[in-house]
């Protein structure tokens, strides 16, 4: 894959720590809000970042490289999904779910729906679980 970078144990450990951190803060944000819908976009955005970090961990463990940088430029999501698919097809479907939400919740004007919240939570949890287990 173009743009994939070679992984080191430090990268893997650091990306897993970030995935954990994003999920923990997402839950804190949700817990501290009076209504879930008040923080829906922040919550989903944090889970998207958690999912991306978790995907990097899986790719590091299985392929020795990861797609860092691709997401940051907002392009080549398909390449990132393809890379993860080579490592773990089920995880790639969860990443795809999150990346579809990324642009809309981050830059769009319509708020994330209750369904978006649930989908992001399921996908984020599954990716983090897979990242810890590899």
């Amino acid at each position, binding site marked *: 894959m173009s743009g994939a970078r*070679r*992984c080191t144990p430090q990268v893997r450990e650091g990306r897993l720590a970030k995935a*954990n951190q994003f999920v*923990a803060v997402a*839950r*804190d944000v949700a*817990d*501290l809000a009076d209504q879930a819908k008040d923080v829906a976009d922040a919550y989903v955005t944090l889970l998207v970042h958690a999912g991306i970090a978790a995907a990097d961990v899986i790719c590091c463990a*299985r*392929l*020795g*490289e990861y797609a860092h940088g691709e997401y940051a430029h907002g392009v080549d999501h398909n390449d990132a999904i393809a890379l993860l698919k*080579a*490592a773990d097809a089920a995880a790639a479907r969860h990443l795809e779910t999150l990346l579809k939400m990324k642009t809309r919740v981050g830059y769009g004007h319509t708020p994330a729906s209750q369904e978006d919240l649930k989908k992001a939570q399921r996908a984020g*949890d599954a990716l*983090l*679980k897979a990242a*810890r*287990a590899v």
Partner: protein
Amino acid sequence: MDLAHPLAVVTPTLDGDILVVLALVDTAFTPRQLHGMLSQHSEDGIRRALRRLTSQGIVSDQRAGNAYLYRLSRSHLAAAPIIELARMRQTFLARLEDRLGSWGVAPVYGAIFGSVARGSMRIDSDIDLLLIRPDAGDRDRWDDLVAQLTADVTAWTGNDTRVLEFSESEVLRSGRQEPVLRDVVAHGLTVAGTADWLRRALPAKEPNDVRS
């Protein structure tokens, strides 16, 4: 056994570690890429092992420019058992989940923690299992199930199994004073319940601190 090196149960050599990498993904690797993932071994050693495995037919090579790419030959008679062995860590976690899910007195939460979860397991490491017992339910039955599981996990792996057990109310009342539970939140491999339950049971601050 060491779940991070599952083929060591049949071959304590570099060949086993290479086969694990090749078995877990259907992707071709150069020796240099494999060296990046198996940095404890030399690149020359990896090349020699790849030649041995290629001569057995279990690994196939393909020229790409000046380099050779290697992948597992998935049609080989030995491929299926090798893939099964390579997936031993996933199989172990799935088997634990299935077992705990079958209990009449289901744990509120369960997770593997310690060296297995951190990826630093050695052949003689204990297997650390956290179980949160529901406050309601038949305690004698629970104790029987835990004892049987402890014996079975040791039989599955050859490693001593250490069960760390708390009741649900203990965790809710004083769990935040237990550093080991924080470690489980950070690194645990959930095998029963949801990680979110444990995280919520261990608030980072006292409720009053949040608004102070």
